[in-house]
């Protein structure tokens, strides 16, 4: 028996029902396009829903927050890798896109005197203005808004439990670039393949952190689908080595493994990292970049001095012990990153919650800064420099974590929720216009090879289960292309991938069609393999450390060298990797950032050498300064630069 194929036609397909997908579908429907939104997870269950719920809204905190200021801020934070056109677009449309969210029910606190959303009372580290708006219920509030945006629009048909398998592309017309003609979907609840004729597809299906499971604090569904689908269709992928790891995730007990426990700044003034022998492996933790913390932990592990569960010990007890400032520290720890503190308390127990003992921590995969190469409409581009749609794939769009080029090597806190609002709605509108304004010819014949490929998988005989290989690739990815990398490790990962690929046709997939877990696991495994390849190829091309890419065997890339991005592309079965030069920020700004960095580290060293009672007094004052009149410490954003003050300097 063969799985049946049903045929449908839409103007726009949106893949993913998180923030980017919901905004894209909503914008496309508003312009009158018929939209099919597909999601493998239940509607709206995405990284957006489980996020901290802070969004960057320009001018929410000060009147002088002009477009140029925010745009340059993002570009500098990203190590000069971000494309200016994209940071400009982000900056220009942040308010408008945020208001779309409010139309769908997101309700921030309002600053009555200024008649605008209330921003947090401080510039989150790295941001040069107050412009981060927090929300009650964190990401869950965004989850409701996404749900509402999709449900209320009759023009949007949606499918959950539906795996978007591949884009169907027409490459036959030699005079044009490849053109999207639709996509193939596995509808697991109905047990059929869906062949969809559609001139445009928006990829908004998130990141790839599950490639490193269980070392992640994000959704299980992040199996790199976005990147793999785009790569197979022939799209360019940019900056794929730039994956953000959070250094302080829980290493045990198993149920909590990978969940966030803290950020460098929550280690506070006297936090240090220790190896299993109690030796300090990194001091001044609160001023370090995430990469530096991850590197210290992973070097100890490589050297056999790691903690029992493959990490190191985050020792914050010196903060707690001081009689006057200690209580302030505890308040700061609990307030500044509440979800992380709760995770740690539940996982590590009472003594740890009181910071009487050190916490065992290990890095966890968090956010992919790279992704599908797009322009300011989220449309696929190729070619040199910023790229052009003439060299991209016509009809392909991307938004949210799926897209690349906006954040470069690092990301300011609270920007990802704004990214998906800005580029989700722009991609939705652009895709709708593209579909409604261009003639489209259905070509069922081109679907045949895709349908045959996937339908023949049902009933595949074999002796291996996908999830055994999945566990294998997750473990190896962590070691070889994870928080720290070497040329040797990257090469070993390539070999590992080849070995796993030879086993793919020996995977057993039973021949039933409704919710075939083995089939879905197989599809996800293939996407994870593809993502691992992308990271490996980009990581090989960038032979020095910058931002989310840490090489143990090579130097840091100097901030004074010419910034470049990596691009990976697949043509037939050959992978092509290249560098693209980016424009450099003026020299005087770079020097200024360098001086600030040195000054902060010197101050920290001076403080730690003071006699105990003086240190205590000084710290008490510092805490009082941080905490507002209410005595509450401001919340910070996991992944944001305020969580790793050192990163404000890593231009």
């Amino acid at each position, binding site marked *: 028996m063969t799985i049946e194929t049903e045929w449908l036609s839409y103007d726009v397909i949106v893949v993913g029902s998180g923030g980017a997908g919901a905004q894209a579908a909503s914008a496309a429907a508003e312009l009158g396009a018929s939209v099919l939104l597909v999601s493998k*997870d*239940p*509607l*709206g*269950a*995405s990284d957006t*829903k*489980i996020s901290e719920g802070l969004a960057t809204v320009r001018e929410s905190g000060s009147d002088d927050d002009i477009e140029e200021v925010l745009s340059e801020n993002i570009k500098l934070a990203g190590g000069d890798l971000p494309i200016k056109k994209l940071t400009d677009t982000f900056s220009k449309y942040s308010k408008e896109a945020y*208001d779309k969210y*409010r*139309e*769908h*029910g997101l*309700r921030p*606190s*309002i600053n009555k005197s200024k*008649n605008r*959303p209330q921003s947090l009372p401080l510039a989150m580290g790295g941001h040069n203005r107050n412009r981060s708006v927090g929300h*009650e*219920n964190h*990401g*869950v*509030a965004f*989850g*409701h808004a996404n*749900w*509402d945006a999709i*449900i*209320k*629009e*009759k023009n949007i048909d949606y*499918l*959950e*439990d539906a795996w978007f398998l591949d884009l169907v592309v027409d490459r036959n017309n030699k005079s044009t670039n490849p053109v999207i003609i639709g996509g193939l979907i596995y509808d*697991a*609840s109905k047990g059929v393949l869906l062949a969809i004729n559609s001139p445009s597809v928006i990829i908004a299906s998130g990141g790839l952190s599950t490639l490193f499971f269980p070392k992640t604090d*994000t*959704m*299980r*569904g992040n199996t790199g689908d976005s990147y793999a689908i785009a790569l197979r269709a022939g799209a360019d992928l940019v900056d794929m080595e730039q994956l953000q790891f959070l250094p302080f995730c829980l290493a*045990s*007990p*198993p*149920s*909590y493994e*990978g*969940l966030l426990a803290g950020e460098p700044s929550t280690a506070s003034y006297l936090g240090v990292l220790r190896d299993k022998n109690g030796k300090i492996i990194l001091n001044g933790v609160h001023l370090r970049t995430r990469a530096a913390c991850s590197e210290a932990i992973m070097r100890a592990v490589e050297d056999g001095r790691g903690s029992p569960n493959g990490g190191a010990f985050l020792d914050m007890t010196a903060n707690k012990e001081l009689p006057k400032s200690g209580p302030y520290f505890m308040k700061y720890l609990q307030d500044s990153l509440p*979800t992380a503190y709760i*995770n740690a308390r539940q996982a590590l127990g009472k003594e740890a919650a009181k910071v009487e003992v050190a916490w065992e921590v290990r890095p966890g995969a968090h956010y992919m800064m790279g992704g599908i190469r797009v322009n300011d409409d989220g449309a696929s581009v190729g070619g040199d420099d910023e790229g052009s749609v003439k060299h991209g794939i016509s009809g392909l769009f991307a938004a949210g974590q799926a897209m690349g080029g906006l954040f470069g090597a690092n990301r300011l806190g609270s920007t990802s929720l704004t990214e998906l609002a800005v580029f989700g709605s722009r991609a939705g509108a652009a895709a709708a216009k593209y579909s409604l304004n261009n003639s489209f010819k259905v070509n069922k014949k081109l679907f045949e090879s895709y349908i045959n490929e996937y339908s023949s998988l049902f009933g595949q005989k074999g002796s291996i*289960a996908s*999830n055994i290989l999945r*566990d294998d690739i997750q473990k190896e990815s962590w070691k070889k292309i994870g928080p720290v990398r070497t040329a040797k490790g990257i090469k070993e990962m390539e070999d590992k991938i080849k070995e796993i690929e030879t086993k793919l046709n020996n995977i*057993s997939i039973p021949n*039933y069609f*409704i*919710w*075939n*877990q*083995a089939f879905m*696991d197989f599809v996800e495994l293939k996407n994870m393999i593809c993502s691992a390849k992308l990271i490996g190829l980009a990581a090989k091309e960038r032979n020095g450390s910058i931002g989310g890419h840490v090489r143990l065997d090579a130097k840091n890339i100097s901030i004074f060298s010419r910034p470049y991005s990596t691009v990976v592309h697949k043509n037939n079965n050959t992978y092509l990797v290249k560098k693209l030069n980016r424009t450099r920020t003026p020299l005087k700004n770079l020097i200024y950032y360098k001086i600030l960095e040195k000054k902060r580290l010197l101050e920290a060293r001076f403080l730690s050498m003071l006699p105990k009672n003086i240190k205590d007094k000084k710290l008490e004052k510092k805490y009082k300064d941080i905490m507002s009149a209410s005595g509450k410490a401001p919340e910070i954003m996991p992944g944001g630069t305020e969580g790793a003050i050192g990163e404000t300097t890593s231009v």
Partner: protein
Amino acid sequence: MTKNTNSLNVNIVTVRDGKETTVAFTYNKRAEKEKPMALDVLMQAQSEVIPDLAFRYGCRARNCGVCTIDINDRPRVACRARVKDGDKLSAIATLPVLSDLVVRRDGIARQMRGLKTSAQGNDLNVDAPEVYHDLTSCIECYACLDKCPMHMRNFADKLPKYNDNNLPNASEGYIHGNPFSLLKLERLRNDPLTSDQGKNIALNKAIDLGLDACVECPGCKCGVGIDLKNKVIKPLLKAAKDKL
């Protein structure tokens, strides 16, 4: 079987092609004194015994709301529900099973399709009342469907059995409501940007979904602790008292 403190014996109910099978599974603790969550048990069972065991999960931190299963016939969020020796893990009984511990969920959301209540063009800079945020804390885990008489009307007052050929078509959206849908409607009614007309639309929708079932019902239980009775059901019943 001898009692081993390094392991736990649980029963996992699998469902394939309409056939229910109870699989006895021994969970091996990965650390001394480990108190595993139901999700840990399912993951280990999948990697060791039932390679294609079907279950949902997402964030592992009780935020995404997708991993709800029944433990000893009561709905629990699997990533934060500890398992004891002898526990039974099965799909939630209130929705039709697709496979093993996976149920079809979309019939719930679909019953709200096309419901537009927000007035466009209003001033967006208005604070929402506290109750709006209370209701927004719902993670959509569907634990509240348990024992809901309104929801059971969809399945002729019985629990949906997978081998029943008369199940309503989820693709059309279930006709009868549930506490989650009522929460969404009450949330809209508490949104300061919803017009009076929109509030009426929401209330009438609640009545259409079968709000009358709530009159005699002792109340529903939320998976994340929202006071459904006082914050959702009572206000709706009060507003609808002349229409029921």
